[in-house]
């Protein structure tokens, strides 16, 4: 029935919207602190490429556990979480902040409107997470 499929579509749309709203609220809750705050410490560096048929996000996640990576697609956004193989104490790698350590990477990346988050593909190469997001209405892979 037409109205049933339309209802399904509407449900999916609302679910996505609610997820996005919660993501935004979560982001707002994180206080902005100058210097290397906890959030900045966990936030991996990333770079963004636009290719003719797709977008590519490359995230630098050194020392991560390749089996514990999560990439979630939302409307116009990506959320990345990756756990490290082991906790890295910053003091051990030359920083002068005795109590700080890194256990997990977290990152939210905004995407252009035509990014098709339903067709995300990701690979890991040399400790870098490479996420490919096709553009809508284009066949790529």
């Amino acid at each position, binding site marked *: 029935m037409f109205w049933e499929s339309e209802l399904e579509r509407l449900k999916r749309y609302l679910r996505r919207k609610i997820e996005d709203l919660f993501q935004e609220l979560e982001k707002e809750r994180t206080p902005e602190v100058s210097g290397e705050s906890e959030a900045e410490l966990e936030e991996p560096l990333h*770079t963004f490429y636009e290719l003719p048929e797709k977008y*590519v996000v490359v995230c*630098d996640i050194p020392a991560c556990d390749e089996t514990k990576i999560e990439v979630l697609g939302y409307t116009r956004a990506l959320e990345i979480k990756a756990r490290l193989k082991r906790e890295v104490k910053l003091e051990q790698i030359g920083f002068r902040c005795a109590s700080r350590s890194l256990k997990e990477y977290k990152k939210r990346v905004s995407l252009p409107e035509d990014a098709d988050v339903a067709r995300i593909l990701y690979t890991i190469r040399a400790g870098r997470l490479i996420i490919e997001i096709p553009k809508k209405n284009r066949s790529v892979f």
Partner: protein
Amino acid sequence: MVVGLPDAGLVGGISVSHLIRELKAREVGGIDIARMMPPLVIVKDGTPRPPLRLFLAKDSILILVAETPLPPSAYYSLSYALLDYSARRRIDYIVSLTGLSSPNRIRTDKPKPYWAASGRKAIEVAEKLGIERFNEGILIGPYAIILKECFRFRLDNIVLLVESFPDLPDPEAASVAVRLFGKLSQVEIDVSKLLEEAELIRLRTKELMRQTSKIMSQIGKGMEMQPTLIYT
């Protein structure tokens, strides 16, 4: 003289840090430009060091390294200071090591190197490296000033550009630059430690990369990926 400044993928900085360590270079001086550099000082062994430090290896290789990003307002003064110093000291070649932002880097573990050069001797030497010439494109930043102003000082400059990620520290690209510098200077340089410690280097240089990226976007570094206007 080999120059490694914070730039795309921190290729220059990572490369020269490795050279300093591998060649057991000793610190012999530095460059500071009063009122133009950020108000900070690098302290080593309890004493202040200039923001741009000069090391000497094998009695003939001067290595210039910057440990903090350089403010764009200092680019011209710094480049001219460097050129003036090189001319006075009769430096044979200035070799600039840098990253070249390229989407090709996503697809390969072996980033491709290119050369650009200024001065007849430099071009002859670069041609023997067996790598492609950087045929056409735009370079932005202190390396660009050094390359275009070298002829005024009758100096020879070779720029070794290695495809890299723009905003991520890229030790693998740096290892390619180091190998090429070894070939150029006929000095054997082992890069295995650099590759073994790539993960650690990326962890340690994250904040420097973040600061460098901010400056690169201020100076329009993204333009390097664009084609030139004149295509004939």
